[in-house]
């Protein structure tokens, strides 16, 4: 279980408070107006930003002081998720071990995962030789083999068209179900949230609210969400 206990963080005059829990294996959407702090919330969990108070824990272990690389957390950013000078295989292999010295069994795991996400035979391509959807698949394959139980996705498919985005969301859902990943995915589209996440965290007015049932949230949105959705 991922817990944010009494977390407060400041960036200049901007403050965000969070007191919430995400159960293991859940896929949770994070929604809210631009600039409300959705990415900031993910940065705290990933370890790029230190909160001024409070703790972030995973299964009772305090993560607050750990550097990003030592946390049980994978991240997919809005862009620059792949190293352009490395092959598809190498980009995925980095998820297992940064030194990229893999055992045979681990290499086989990378290959199997690439096949699983539909990138069979593209192991030696560079990212520039792939389509946008294929690049997303590489990033997803990496977090699936990484063995880190939490995945943070910060509007990862914003650059893709609707059909491709839906396809990727479905792949995220499948991979999460297969590997037991706990997923937090930032989106600005209620439709995306409904598609993938049973529960949704609303970030608005300086507060990241505990996850609530997605369908219920959009049926009866609180005022801040109502203003954002324009309904």
């Amino acid at each position, binding site marked *: 279980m991922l817990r944010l206990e009494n977390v407060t963080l400041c960036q200049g005059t901007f403050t965000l408070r969070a007191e919430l829990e995400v159960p293991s294996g859940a896929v949770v959407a994070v929604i809210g107006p631009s600039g409300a702090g959705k990415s900031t919330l993910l940065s705290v969990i990933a370890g790029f930003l230190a909160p001024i108070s409070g703790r972030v824990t995973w299964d009772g272990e305090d993560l607050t002081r750990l550097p990003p690389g030592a946390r049980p957390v994978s*991240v997919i950013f809005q862009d*620059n998720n792949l190293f352009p000078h490395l092959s598809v295989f190498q980009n995925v292999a980095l998820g297992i071990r940064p030194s990229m010295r893999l055992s045979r069994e681990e290499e086989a795991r990378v290959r199997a995962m690439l096949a699983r996400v539909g990138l069979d035979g593209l192991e030696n391509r560079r990212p520039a030789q792939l389509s946008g959807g294929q690049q997303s698949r590489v990033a997803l394959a990496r977090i699936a083999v990484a063995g880190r139980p939490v995945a943070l996705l910060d509007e990862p498919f914003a650059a893709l068209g609707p059909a491709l985005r839906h396809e990727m969301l479905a792949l995220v859902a499948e991979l999460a179900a297969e590997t037991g990943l706990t997923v937090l995915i930032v989106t600005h589209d209620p439709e995306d949230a409904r598609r993938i996440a049973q529960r949704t965290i609303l970030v608005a007015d300086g507060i990241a609210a505990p996850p609530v049932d997605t369908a219920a949230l959009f049926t009866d949105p609180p005022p801040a969400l109502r203003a954002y959705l324009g309904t």
Partner: protein
Amino acid sequence: MIRALPGVAAALAVAGLTLGTLVVVALRAEGVARLGPGDWAAIRFTLVQAALSAGLSVALAIPVARALARRRFAGRGVLITLLGAPFILPVIVAVLGLLAIFGRNGALSSVLGWFGLPPVQVYGFHGVILAHVFLNLPLATRLILQGWLAIPAERFRLAATLGLAPRDVRRLLERPMLRSVVPGAALVIFLICTTSFAVALTLGGGPRATTVELAIYQAFTLEFDLGKAALLSLVQVAICACAAVIALGAAVPAGFGAGLDRMIARWDAPRGWRRLADGAIIAAAAAFLLLPILAVIADGLMALGGLPAGVWKAAGRSVLVALTAAALALALALPLALLIQRAGRFGGLIEPVAYLSIATSPLVIGTGLFILLFPVANPVALALPVTAVVNAAMSLPFVLRALMPALRDAEAAHGRLADSLGMTGWARLRYLLLPRLRRPAGFALGLSAALSMGDLGVVALFADPAQATLPLALYQLMGAYRMDDAAGAAVLLLGLSLGLFWVFDRGGRLNAAA
């Protein structure tokens, strides 16, 4: 994170090489009272020629840059690329070229001879100035052209729709730009000219045309007066440091700079006689800059086959020194760059260490190393390693300037991803940073190899003739009036300098993924 230790070690090595040698020199230096009238003349000449060279280079560069900025013609891109070449052109080759055109037996004197006029004389005060303008006019032109191209195209379009006369364009657009660009360009050239050694050695000399650098060399080799050489070194550092501090405030060029061949559409470009004048200016500048080099090549290609074996051996030594210097410069710059990047805000405190070599001079470092080495070893035996070390220190600022932006970009684009993957130390270096640094590192290696290849400086202090590098061998051939062999050696030197640059720069681009 990348470990800090190698960077700290590199910073200490650079500081030792620059500040350390300075301390050694200061301890050995004799009182200011030892400065004779000749030395004061050298100080005066250094300042006067640097000021005059800078002023003339900039004054001539303004019309050339203006013509290049507002005219389109075939070969414009090539010409602008060539304006970057003098940076890696060996000074001694340039001198030989100027002799071929402006020398007593040069092309100009021959033409004058047809009209019964006496030949021109290129040695002495005006020869030094001529060579400095030849070497720095391209740099000044590029810097000022950069200023012209930085004026937004919309302003010129506006000027055209308002029907402004050239005089109004000058007053409203061009003069404000020149006011901000010209002082920086002039200062940079002044700084370069204050450490002039090879030009003064070959074209200057005597009481009226000796620079402080040359005076250090003479105190060394003619008088073997270490105390005086050390004293003159302190004077040299004082001059350089003052100029460097002032120049640092102004815009210092980022070496070659790309994108200058871009052309802004200029609807306001005046027609008629001004068009012809622009053409004449460009043609004259191109002729002034290209003819000397073409003359050397024409003279030298024939002599290349008959070069004495000693020249080829010197070429071999030079290539070895150049490769060592380039490797050393990168070995110092890379950990320094990583340390500066890692230090974040505090990187600004470390970066100046790399630029210390600008505030000192090759002969000063050489003098310091000589004083250090003399009691424990034979400096002459160490001439080549010392030359490589000093060359590496001199090219360090350029190497660092090439690496830093790429390093910052790599961290900005992929640093967080690497952090989240736990890529630290060697893994980060191997799989994130080094691949992103390949192109600038190739460029930087090429640059420092070419600079070292063509350098005639500290090696003249140390080396005995049997251990000469190619530039020194070329100088000796000139001294012996073997001008054919000298031209041949110059072609060889030019080819090797440009070749080394090309090979490394190319190597950095080859197979480099975007």
